[in-house]
């Protein structure tokens, strides 16, 4: 294998992992309450800024930073649910939609106010800036750490959903909220839980994103968030394995588009992603693993 190919594969794995981490949250939330949380991408930005603050303040050992970012993302995701979503639960879908869109705009602009509009450069701890040589290819260590951690998270989450009482309850609510209530399941608490877990993973993606690209700004979450939603659609909205595989499919196609076409096309990569979205929606709107859903009134 040529070293260029190895490099592109590693890039695809790493980018795909980031999309997968964000897509999981979209899929969890949609699965439970049939809502696309537009503010979800902004949790990536929040995670990135938390990382930046923790690294810059130098208060905690670097190994503790991911745990703190996960915890912070958990709280931030839950807070979005409490503040924006809880108030309108039971309202028509379009209202929920507008509310999460409003929440996203509010979060981005609050970040602009308090964090400033200037992009910040980022120095990740020394260990992660190391580069390795694999089969002659020069690869950044972080691009290998990202997929490993992502797969560990995916594994942990899948076990949680499959085996634990809360996990079974989440699947029950996703299928039939009315019957779930009759079991004594408190839907509000589970909705909080899925927003929070999704938030934790998106914040972790933000940590990786900042480490990988070395620059952060208050609006950085929106586009990756939207692309992660495209990944969710590719995999089938509401399906957990779908979100993960969709993330990797999108990551690899984007890297392939940039890496194997003449360089003058690389400016069109975002257009390519959304072109892909429209194609998927035409060919298989329920995605790879989604179940075709009846139209709801």
């Amino acid at each position, binding site marked *: 294998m040529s070293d260029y190919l190895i490099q592109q594969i590693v890039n695809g794995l790493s980018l795909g992992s980031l999309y997968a981490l964000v897509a999981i949250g979209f899929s969890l939330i949609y699965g439970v309450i049939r809502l696309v949380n537009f503010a979800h991408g902004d949790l990536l930005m929040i995670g990135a800024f938390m990382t930046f603050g923790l690294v810059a303040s130098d208060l905690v050992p670097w190994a503790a930073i991911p745990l703190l970012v996960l915890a912070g993302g958990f709280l931030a995701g839950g807070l979005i649910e409490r503040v924006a979503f809880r108030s309108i639960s039971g309202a*028509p879908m379009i209202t929920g939609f507008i509310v999460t869109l*409003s929440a996203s705009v509010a979060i981005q*602009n609050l970040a602009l106010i308090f964090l400033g509009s200037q992009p910040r450069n980022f120095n990740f701890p020394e260990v992660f800036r190391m580069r390795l040589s694999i089969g002659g290819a020069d690869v950044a260590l972080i691009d290998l750490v990202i997929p490993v951690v992502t797969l560990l998270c995916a594994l942990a989450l899948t076990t949680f959903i499959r085996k634990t009482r809360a996990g079974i309850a989440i699947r029950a609510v996703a299928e039939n909220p009315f019957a779930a209530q009759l079991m004594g399941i408190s839907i509000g608490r589970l909705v909080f839980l899925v927003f929070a877990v999704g938030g934790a993973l998106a914040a972790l993606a933000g940590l990786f994103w900042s480490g990988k690209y070395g620059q952060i700004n208050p609006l950085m979450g929106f586009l990756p968030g939207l692309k992660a939603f495209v990944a969710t659609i590719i995999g089938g909205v509401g399906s957990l394995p779908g979100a993960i595989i969709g993330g990797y499919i999108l990551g690899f196609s984007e890297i392939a588009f940039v890496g194997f076409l003449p360089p003058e096309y690389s400016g069109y990569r975002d257009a390519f992603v959304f072109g892909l979205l429209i194609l998927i929606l035409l060919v298989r709107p329920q995605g790879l693993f989604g179940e075709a859903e009846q139209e709801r009134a």
Partner: protein
Amino acid sequence: MKMPALSPLQAFFLLVAVMAGLVFAVTASGNGYFETFAALTLINVMLAVSLTMTNGFTGMFSLGHPAFMTLGAYVTILFTYPVGRKGFAMPALPEIIAQIHLPLPVAALVGGLFAALMGWLIGRLVVHLQTHYLAVATLGLIIVVQTFALNLDGLTRGGRGITGIPREATLSLIGVCTVLVIVLCWRIKHASLGRAMLAVRENEMAARCFGIEAFRVKLLAFILGAGIAGFCGALLPHVVSVMSPKTFGLILAFNLIAIIVVGGQGSIMGAILAAVFISVGSESLRRVEESTGVYGVTQVIVAVALISFLLVRPKGLFGLKEPFIRTS
């Protein structure tokens, strides 16, 4: 107390009179700031009214207006930019077009038609999608259009933006267009096409059972909205004289949604009042931002106000109703 209701004809004359008075008063004041602000507010009114038709009447949730505005704007500028400077600013422009100069009303119609054509091409693919898919697809469309505008720099000057666009969009021209757009959407709402749209919004299945071709009705609403958006997008750079790929983006899409939600997602009167109210409100807040140097407050306030408004009045100001005017 009940307000006396006007007949549609009386309302039309009242609208024309108010518009003429406004245009005359602002123009006579000779205050450039007021003139620009009034022009932008009227463009917002047109956008809001057309989105009320596309989304409100049919129940679709398109965020794509800014994409069509961008398309309409760039196409129009190709015909209105001073011929002498086109060769330098837009080297990729074919010689035939580079020689043509059209007056703004004609060029803007071309831009609007181009946007409508794109609306037809894209609408055929997306209007059947369910709410959240349509929203994401149209958000994606904004990004696709922006990406092309950024990369086709032989026509658009890319990220540097086009400056020195002739300020041909006078307030009186915009005033006339606003009246026309309002009348058009009003006529549609109260004709059989509008009733078909409203039927699709209430219950698509049932509408189909009555022989309404839901797909065609939605597509038509999408195309009309795209055309009007393209036309508005064409006018705006000729007010402010600059245009760049990011001029019309997500924030605009969000603000338009805010306006039609406040207006009632289906009420033309509501959309007009909400557009004026939100334009005036955010302009005043923007001046506060400028004087304090804290940017972003306006958007936060609009977003929080919208959430609170939805809690108190989920159906907006008027719902589907048109207050003060007899409609039957």
